[in-house]
Structure formats: structure tokens, C-alpha cells
């Protein structure tokens, strides 16, 4: 990755300085900063300018130039110090934070859903979709529609074969896209809020001598729904996590206005990692983050973190919050109730997806689930693709 400064006014700079700067820019990019050629060129200009004399004036200047978000702003100090003051040692550590993380985990996806990984499951949970065409008999893959259908209605736990898993994930991604497209189209047909467009009207009626004969109307543009997803990634949800991570990626990719969070004992904001174009890398990265197995689920506490730190920013009046969780909470019920109440007041709809609803004989017995239910607008199953697809008409009506 060469620097190739096009418009440098830093001509007086020596080769070593340029090289160092190039290295710094590369380090920033590796850490997820969006730095283009124009910025590098401007940085050379700063280095050649009066602020470069002292590190105490150079740092704020480069920070203002290279940062684009609050999280960049917070991390800059550390990266700057590591690079310019402790060349070598700390650099490796920082790089490890993002670049290496994405290497390891593809394995995680395959583990999920494998029955051998879950020896202790009670029998009645082993229910699967009845047609013999189901996920297990991995042959005969090119059956088109019926194949699609069977995968769609198979409980996600029972999708075992690697190829099936891949296909399921592709389906999830496509589904989230379809949802988005339909939502937008319907809104346009449904709404008739109109007002007069004076500019166009006048323009059109000049030839009528200013008498308004042809009226130009304007249709109010409806902004699409904003979706906020909170995914429970605790041990009890283990079987479904990888799949929902994929769904999350699809949704964040398709809805321009969407935010995603993952929680188990604490809450993590993951939209940024999900916006990685490389799907596999994004999902891998997230699967790692989502590994919160052990230590229980603190739904109430995670919601509290969300309400306190994120809600103000990510929620507006046309936001639907979608919580994906089985409702097994190891925190206190009072806190969960309090936080659900707060959340309820802020957003337009709360949708709670519970994979367990798909299981036979399930009723929301878990204390947490019981407590949260009064604040939920839609309580729906999410154990297979069909059930997710069934959500779409509901979302379109919001």
C-alpha cells in the first residue's frame, strides 16, 4: 500500500519521514480508520508545517485529520503513542486487535447445530420437520424450490451439514434484503400525504399567464423504519447464535438505518464489525465476540447499558427494537422490568423473537420472559426461516 501523495505540499520532507507516515497510515487503516489519499497528502502538509515541531501540537492536528468517528477519536491516542513512541512492540499488539481476530474461528459456525455437540438434550427437543426431505439427508441438493422450502421450515438446530448451513445463511441474508425492499415499496403506495409544490406549479403555468391551471403536487417521502437488533448470545442460545449473527449481518447490510448489539453478561455494539463487506470475515469476527458462554445472561443489565449509553443515539420515533432471546435471565427480574419499561417509552415497537416458541409444548415460563412480556408488542417464534419470513408483513405495517 504505497502512499503516493499526489498533491503534497510537503516536498521538503525527507524520505524517512514519508516512510514513517506511510506506516502510520497503514496502521490506522488496519485499525479500521478510513484514511484516503487526500488525507495522507494533507498529513504530509501538516508534517511540513509549523505544528510538526512538537509532538504536543502534532498529535491533535493529525487526530483532527485522521479521525472520523468518536471511536476513532478514543483509540487514536493509543495508536499514535504506540506508533510514534514505541515503534515495534505495541504496534504488533494493536494490529492483533483487528487483523488477527478474523483469522481463527470459521470452526465456530460448524459447531453450532451439531447434535453431537449437545449430548444432554432431552428427547422431545429433537423434534424435526417431518418430511423425509429434511436437512439431515444432505443429498439431492439441486431440488430448487422444494429444497428451499424444507430448509426454511427445518428447525435451525437440526441443520447440520456444512453445505446446508451455508445455504441457510445465504437464505437469511436474502430474506433480510427482501424484507427491506418490500417495506419500502409498500410505504410508497400506502401514503398519500400531499402538498402543493409551488415552484413546479408556477413554472408549469407561466404559459397560462400565471393562472394556476396545472397543479404540481408533492408526495411526502416516508422514511423507512429503523431497526435496532439486540441478540442474546448466551450459552442457552448457543444453538442459534451463528445463524442469527448471519441474519444480523444481512439486516445491517440491507437497512441503511439499523444498529446491532450482542449481549450475554454485557452488551457490545457490533454494527461497525458487521459493516465489513466480506461476509465471512464479519460473521467470524462477530461469532468470536458473541462467545459469551458461561456466566449466564444478564438481560436486564444489558438493557440498562443499552438504555443508558446507546438508546439516545440509536432510537428515534420510528424505531422498532427487535430482541432475540430465549428469556433465560440470571439477573434480577425487577431490573429487567424497569429497563423494559424504559425501552418501551422510547421506541415505536418492541418485537421479541424467541426461538423456543417453535418447540412443542413451549410456554413462556422463564421468569425473565414472563416479566418482559407486558412490554412486548409482538412475541414471535424464530426457530426457522419461515418464522422469520412471517415477520415481514408485521414490520411493513408499523
Amino acid at each position, binding site marked *: 500500500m504505497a502512499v503516493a501523495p499526489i498533491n503534497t505540499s510537503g516536498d521538503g520532507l525527507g524520505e524517512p519521514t514519508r516512510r514513517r507516515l506511510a506506516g502510520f497510515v497503514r496502521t490506522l487503516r488496519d485499525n479500521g480508520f478510513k484514511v484516503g489519499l*487526500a488525507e495522507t497528502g494533507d498529513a504530509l502538509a501538516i508534517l511540513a508545517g509549523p505544528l510538526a515541531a512538537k509532538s504536543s501540537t502534532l498529535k491533535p*492536528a493529525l487526530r*483532527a*485529520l485522521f479521525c472520523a468517528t468518536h471511536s476513532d477519536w478514543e483509540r487514536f491516542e493509543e495508536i499514535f503513542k504506540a506508533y510514534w513512541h514505541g515503534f515495534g512492540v505495541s504496534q504488533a499488539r494493536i494490529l492483533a486487535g483487528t487483523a488477527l481476530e478474523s483469522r481463527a474461528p470459521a470452526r465456530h459456525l460448524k459447531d453450532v447445530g451439531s447434535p453431537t455437540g449437545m449430548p444432554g438434550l432431552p428427547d422431545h427437543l429433537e423434534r424435526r420437520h417431518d418430511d423425509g426431505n429434511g436437512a439431515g439427508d444432505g443429498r439431492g441438493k439441486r431440488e430448487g424450490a422444494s429444497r428451499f422450502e424444507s430448509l426454511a421450515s427445518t428447525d435451525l438446530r437440526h441443520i447440520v451439514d456444512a453445505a446446508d448451513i451455508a445455504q441457510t445463511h445465504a437464505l437469511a441474508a436474502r430474506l433480510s434484503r427482501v424484507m427491506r425492499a418490500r417495506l419500502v415499496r409498500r410505504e410508497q403506495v400506502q401514503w398519500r400525504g400531499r402538498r402543493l409544490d409551488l415552484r413546479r406549479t*408556477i413554472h408549469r403555468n*407561466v*404559459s397560462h399567464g400565471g393562472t394556476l391551471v396545472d397543479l404540481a403536487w408533492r408526495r411526502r417521502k416516508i422514511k423507512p423504519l429503523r431497526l435496532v437488533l439486540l441478540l442474546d448470545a448466551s450459552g442457552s442460545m448457543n444453538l442459534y447464535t451463528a445463524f442469527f449473527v448471519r441474519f444480523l449481518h444481512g439486516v445491517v447490510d440491507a437497512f*441503511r438505518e439499523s444498529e446491532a448489539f450482542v449481549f450475554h453478561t454485557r452488551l457490545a455494539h457490533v454494527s461497525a464489525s458487521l459493516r465489513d463487506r466480506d461476509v465471512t470475515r464479519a460473521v467470524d469476527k462477530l461469532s468470536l465476540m458473541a462467545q459469551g458462554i458461561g456466566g449466564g445472561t444478564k438481560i436486564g443489565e444489558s438493557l440498562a447499558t443499552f438504555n443508558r449509553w446507546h438508546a439516545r443515539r440509536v432510537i428515534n420515533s420510528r424505531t422498532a427494537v427487535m430482541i432475540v432471546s430465549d428469556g433465560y435471565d440470571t439477573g434480577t427480574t425487577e431490573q429487567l422490568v424497569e429497563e423494559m419499561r424504559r425501552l418501551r417509552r422510547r421506541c415505536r415497537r418492541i418485537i421479541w423473537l424467541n426461538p423456543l416458541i417453535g418447540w412443542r409444548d413451549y410456554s413462556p415460563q422463564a421468569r425473565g420472559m414472563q416479566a418482559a412480556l407486558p412490554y412486548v408488542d409482538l412475541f414471535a417464534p424464530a426457530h426457522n426461516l419461515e418464522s422469520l419470513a412471517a415477520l415481514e408483513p408485521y414490520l411493513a405495517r408499523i
Partner: protein
Amino acid sequence: MTLNRDEISRRLAAVGYIADHDVATALWLMDFLKRPLLLEGEAGVGKTEVAKALAAVHSAELIRLQCYEGLDQNAALYEWNYQRQLLAIKMREGAGANADAIEEHIFSERYLLERPLLAAIRRENPPVLLVDEVDRADEEFEAFLLELLSDFQVSIPELGTIKATSIPRVVLTSNGTRELSDALRRRCLYHYVDFPEVDREARIIITRTPSIDAALAVQIARMVASVRKEDLRKVPGVAETLDWAATLAGLDFHDLRQEPEVVHETMMCLLKTREDRSRLTREVTERLLGKVA
């Protein structure tokens, strides 16, 4: 006229803006690199004040565009003066002019109403353009703004292209209610405005409320800092601090410990929701007072 960084620092202080150290650097870079400045931070940390101070530093006019959902080019850039146009059409028609001539006449500069963005690029002296809460506007508007900020020219279909007579200094603020596009972020310099530290807030109080005791100002700043750490729905901003300071100064306070009862009652200047009021009980106030005073 470009000022150096220390000069900017000095002038900021002279116009009564108590800047955190790095703001001056960012403001200097705006001129040096010819880039707009994007300010982010919680509501009430004084983002808008930065733009006002910048205008004062350069003795420039401040043109402000407040963004909101549904803001469109008509409201931000230019609009035609319809009433006058209609009148002109009637008059010309009476005089027997043909349609083409009328059209040419009514779509001329005379009937054009400037809105903030157009005004900002047509001034003799470069003004400061404040695009406030840009995150409230739609994506389309953001894209349009990006185009304007790189070309500094506007094309009006009926009139032609208007080039900037002077390049304004542009400050954008965002509360982060919506994620801004990468393109806009990259185009801008970035500065995150945080709540001021205790001693800076104390200096701000003293500058804005000259009648106050210096010791009381420090106490107030420390009290507000600890209130901000409480779990509140609306964290008090600098403006709230100043209200409270003015109230206490008006009540002839010299020390917060003087009358804890009054301190608790006047704290409604800081807390703007019923929930927050009930959260900060008398006991909590006393605990905080014990810590800071």
C-alpha cells in the same frame, strides 16, 4: 488572512470562549487544509459555541443552517419569490409580452430568495457557515451538502451556475442521532467535544457570571461534574451549569455548604425531567455535596 495557532488561541480567549487545548489546533487546520470541521459530542457541551467563537475570532459573519428531518434544497439553498413572480406575470401579460420573455424575466436574480447555503457562498468576506445538527437532515441532503462543500458552486436550473465569491469556513455539528456517511466524515476534520473538565468549567462560569465567587464557581463545577456521573436521562450541559451558577449568584451564595436546602431546590436548573428530579433525592444531593464541597 490566516492566523497562526497561538493567535487563534489568544483570540478565542479574548472573545470569551474558554477553549479546550485542541480546539485551537482544529480551527487552525481548517484554514491550513481548507477543510470543514465536524464537531460531535453530547447535547449541551457547547458545539454551537465553537462556531460562534470562530466567527468572532475572524470577525466574520455567522450564517446558521439548522437542519431538521425533511429539510430540502428549497429551505437550505434558495427559493423563488412566488408572490412577486405571480404579480410580474400578470403585469407583463397585461402589457402583451410573450410567454418566453415573461419566463426569462421572472426567473432572474430579482426574484431569487437566498437561503443560508446560497448566502454563505455569495458574501464579499468569507463568513462562517454553521450547519447545525446535520444528523437530523436526510441522507439526500447530506449528499447534496457534500457536493456543495467540495465544489462551492450551485446550479440553479432556471438561472445557471453560481460560483462562490468567497469560500466560507464551514462548521458542522452532530449529536449522533444518525450515522453520517463515510464520505462526509472523510471530507471533514473531526473534533469530539466532551464536557469540560472541572477547572475549565469553573473558568467558563467565571467568564459568563462575573459576579460569582471564584471558590463557588469551582464548587459548582465539581458538583455538576459529579451530577453528570449519576444515572440520569438528561445529562446537564454547560448552559444548565451557567443557569444554576447565575441562580446561586443571584441568591448571594458564597459557599455551597451555606444552605444545602436551597442548593437542592435550585438544582432544578440542572435536571429537566421528573424522573431525574426524583432520582436526585435530598440524600443524594447531600452525599454529592459532602464529596465536592
